[in-house]
């Protein structure tokens, strides 16, 4: 029954609380609480908080599901993701995938700024990364998240985790590439992708 309701919700979704005629919170109702941490419309002004607006639907759904199942390390996201059903996670992923990418908009604080030398070094190191994260990390498809223009502080933090945590969930291809790069290399790669607009 619940599933059927959610299908109906998807039919009438639109606007902030569109779909109010069906049982269960609407897509907008579920997602607007995310903005409190991830920024207005999923565009983050906090350098350690990733922007999630306009990320691929599949990627967002996968992240939330992995948080929910404790398969992806996190601080609070595993506690929050468990609060939603699979259908609700689907609605949240759809909501943010449908918004426009635009990191740093309206930011009142600056994160670390991109160092042009490091970014230049990162550009050559990122050649392998760009086999998937094409076009300076701008391209995104079902499983590949956008890297271009994401917060530098966040990218550094996460790339460090991908490298240091043996169990960090990541595609095999990615692990192979990450292992080839030193900590300094990865920092340069982060500067490169953060600097792409």
């Amino acid at each position, binding site marked *: 029954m619940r599933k059927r309701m959610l299908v109906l919700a998807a039919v009438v979704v639109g606007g*902030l609380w569109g779909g109010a005629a069906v049982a269960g*919170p609407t897509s907008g109702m579920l997602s607007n609480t995310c903005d*409190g*941490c*991830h920024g207005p419309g999923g565009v983050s002004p906090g350098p350690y908080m990733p922007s999630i607006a306009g990320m691929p639907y599949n990627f967002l759904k996968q992240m939330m599901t992995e948080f929910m199942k404790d398969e992806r390390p996190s*601080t609070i996201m595993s506690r929050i993701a468990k609060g*939603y059903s699979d259908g609700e996670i689907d609605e949240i992923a759809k909501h943010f995938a449908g918004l426009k990418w635009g990191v740093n908009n309206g930011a009142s604080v600056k994160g670390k700024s991109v160092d042009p030398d490091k970014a230049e070094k990162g550009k050559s190191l990122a050649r392998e990364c760009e086999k998937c994260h094409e076009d300076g990390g701008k391209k995104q498809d079902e499983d590949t998240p956008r890297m271009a223009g994401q917060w530098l502080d966040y990218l550094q933090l996460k790339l460090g985790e991908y490298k240091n945590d043996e169990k960090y969930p990541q595609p095999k291809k990615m692990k192979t590439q990450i292992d080839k790069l030193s900590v300094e290399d990865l920092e340069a790669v982060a500067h490169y992708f953060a600097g792409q607009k």
Partner: protein
Amino acid sequence: MYDLTRRHFVKLTGGLAAAGLASSFVANPARAAEGKKRVVVVGGGYGGVIAAKYLRKVDPNIVVTLIEKEKLYYSCPLSNPIIVGLRDLKVQRWGYDNLAKHGINFIQDEVLEIDVAKRTVSTAKNASFSYDKLVVAPGVEFKWDAIEGYSEKVSEKIPHGWKAGPQTLLLQEQLSAMKDGDPYIIVAPPNPYRCPPGPYERAGLVAWYLKKNKPRSKVIILDPKDKFAKQGLFINGWKELGFNIEWVSGNDGGKVTRVDANNMSVHTEMQEYKSSAINLIPPQKAGKIAQISGLADKTGWCPVNQKTFESTIHKDVYVIGDACTVTGEIPKSGFAANSEAKIAAAAIHASFNGQGEPDPSYVNTCYSLLSPDYGISVAAVWAYRNNAITKVSGGVSPEKASAVFRKQEAMYAESWYQSIMAEMFS
């Protein structure tokens, strides 16, 4: 329920909202056409500002007026680090200028009276505003008469620091001036009160400061309660960080009954505590306007419909944030107020359009710092099920975690602050 007309209507309103979002709507409230719905929001904090913004977001035709007493807003969350010199008060200060950009009519004034029969509010500057729906978000007021010898006047000598601003700076001055070897005394309030982990975050940060600057001093927390928010994490963390903190619980005689400002002492039933640095956080109740307009019940807080935040005492008046009574253990936190505001805005919108009460989703995320590199958090999601607010998931940070994890939580605390402030003031 699923008739065509209804669906068509939902689609239509959804479309309008989306169109409103796409443009930057600059509305002139004075030009508001006859027949437009008017919502007045009282209070410009974590709850009020978000309610005003979301009402405009969902329907740019609603005429929204926000009335706030102060010209500038000082955020309480993350104000504790100011006391120990880790942060400047300036980064806690925000202006209301951008609200106009969202078509919100901002009025700097104090609401003195709510006339629920006439649906008007009147203010200190002698203005009167009519409403179809009213949102009341006044935060908390202190029970000045709850502890003998304490008063608003005395709080200038023995500060509470429970509303960020001059009181925060006063705490900072007293901490920096106190003698090495003197205790730093924190008097915690009884439940319920704004920001449950707040006094303990403060205790930890002060202990961190003392460890570096006045190593012979310790923090004494005098508490009427026998347990507190994130207790296990705080106590373990204080031990791990080598902080000198003594917590005196209610059972151990921690309840303060009297204050002697001339003597700079506080008294429990068992003992007198003396110091040049005392922080007394008084018992609290819903903000003044909620009291004088009869929105509060005998508990001192405002009962509301848990699904919509409409007052169960006065129809068409919605109370959100610290002032309202919420079940399901949702705390009086800034993030909870933000979440409640969004729910109330949705409920008001639905009511204007003759729709049923929308199903709410409630979230809270709250960080506390023990030191600059050591953060802990609590997060939870609630749903409205079987006519009650029901916790679906959540909890505090793990008891055992790496230093990296604790540091990340401290970093996320700052980013959380930037995001939630941007949602309010950008």
